[in-house]
């Protein structure tokens, strides 16, 4: 129980996937223009990361390890995650059109995202148990969402701010991301596993 709590704390704040580990920078910069879309993306990431970790953990423990195929984890994980997300998308479209409207556009975007693969790979590398892996995935994705939503909020304000001409657009966004990352550095070393 203690370990699960510390996993949650560590991967939301201390080892934030975007701001400390630098995974998933692409969607972090790409869909953080509006808080609304950032929320949609966040929900999709939480969903996909948890599901992907759950399945890949089972695959790793019950298929790859017994056959001593650990070296194939990246290939198989990519295959499984891509197939799974596609499957969920098709099913969701039929069963819950409302949910599909909300998440649908974002699902294909994160299928091949490095953050998703990283969670799956780290979960087995850290030798987490099944339950721990799930909480690890949830925490990591919440950390991702946190960074995304904070960034979207800042960028919405930046729209109205007076930015020196040379720094307009992507430049100021990258600087903002850097400062945000520095801010999260304050959590460094607060807790370790």
């Amino acid at each position, binding site marked *: 129980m203690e370990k699960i709590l510390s996993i949650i704390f560590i991967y939301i704040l201390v080892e934030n996937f975007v701001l400390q580990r630098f995974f998933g920078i692409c969607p972090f910069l790409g869909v953080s223009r509006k808080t609304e879309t950032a929320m949609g993306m966040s929900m999709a990431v939480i969903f996909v990361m948890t599901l992907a970790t759950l399945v890949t953990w089972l695959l790793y423990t019950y298929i790859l390890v017994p056959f001593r*195929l650990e070296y*194939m984890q990246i290939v*198989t994980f990519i*295959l499984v995650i891509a*197939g799974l997300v*596609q499957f969920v998308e*098709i*099913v969701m479209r039929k069963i819950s059109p409302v949910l599909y409207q909300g998440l649908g556009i974002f699902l294909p975007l994160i299928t091949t995202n490095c953050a998703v693969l990283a969670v799956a790979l780290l979960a087995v590398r850290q030798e987490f148990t099944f339950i721990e892996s799930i909480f690890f995935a949830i925490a990591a994705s919440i950390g991702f969402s946190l960074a995304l939503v904070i960034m979207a909020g800042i960028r919405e304000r930046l729209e*109205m701010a*007076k930015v020196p001409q040379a720094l307009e657009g992507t430049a100021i966004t990258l600087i903002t991301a850097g400062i945000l990352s520095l801010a999260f550095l304050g959590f460094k070393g607060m807790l370790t596993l």
Partner: protein
Amino acid sequence: MLMTYAILTLGILGLFFGLLLAVTARVFTVQSDPQVDAVREVLPGANCGACGYAGCVNFAGAVVQGKAKTNGCIPGGEETARAVAEVLGQKFEEAVQPVATVFCIGDVTRAADRYIYDGVKECAAANSIYGGFKACRYGCLGLGDCVRACIFDAIKMGKHGLPVVDSEKCTGCGLCAEACPRDIIKMLPKGEQGHLVLCSSHDRGKAVSSVCSVGCIACKACIKACPRDAIVMEDNLAVIDQEKCDDCGECVLKCKPGTIHKRSAIPTADEAFAAAGAAEEKKETA
């Protein structure tokens, strides 16, 4: 041996997911109405939202269900309306195409500013700071929110800081009218007929004349001059009923500030575009 396992595992996994996707795609197909797809095909696909629906697909759905009219697609105009009606086997209804019209001629040479604005170059932002930098609180701020809103490239900023509509390119979608924080742009039926009072100010006469040389001062001279009683005063602003107006031009002669213009005499887009182009060239060479 190890290699066989690797090949088998990956092969079986691939096969499993391939089959799974194939089966689910078959089992969970979402039946989309072929009629909706057919209607969607003939729409422009700009997803501008002028029809009142979120996008072209939603509009197509509404048309098929009978909730929207076949001529509801404003940017598509007559051509699209005809095509949609044909797809659905309905009778074609003439669509009246609107065109954006700017109801302000108080450009930088004619209307005064209250203070120097040095903020974000957006009308919406400028308008929110003490009611805008322009002395007239109804007049065009000229920072081009409408120009940026137009997805058809039909509005350009003219020489003296007023937007000019290219009526050829304008599809009447109304995005510019929505973007204007001061509601200066109105959508009118396309055409050259009629006269317009090119002012949006509801201030009293004296307040208008002190800040703008071409604003409507509500003197009612035009009302008296009009032989067809087509002009009424609405909250200190003369409004011409286009149905009644017969283009006699009496009001233009009587209008002291020169606010009333014949519709066909509104500065055409070409002139303003040429001016803007020349200015840009000048800037580039400099």
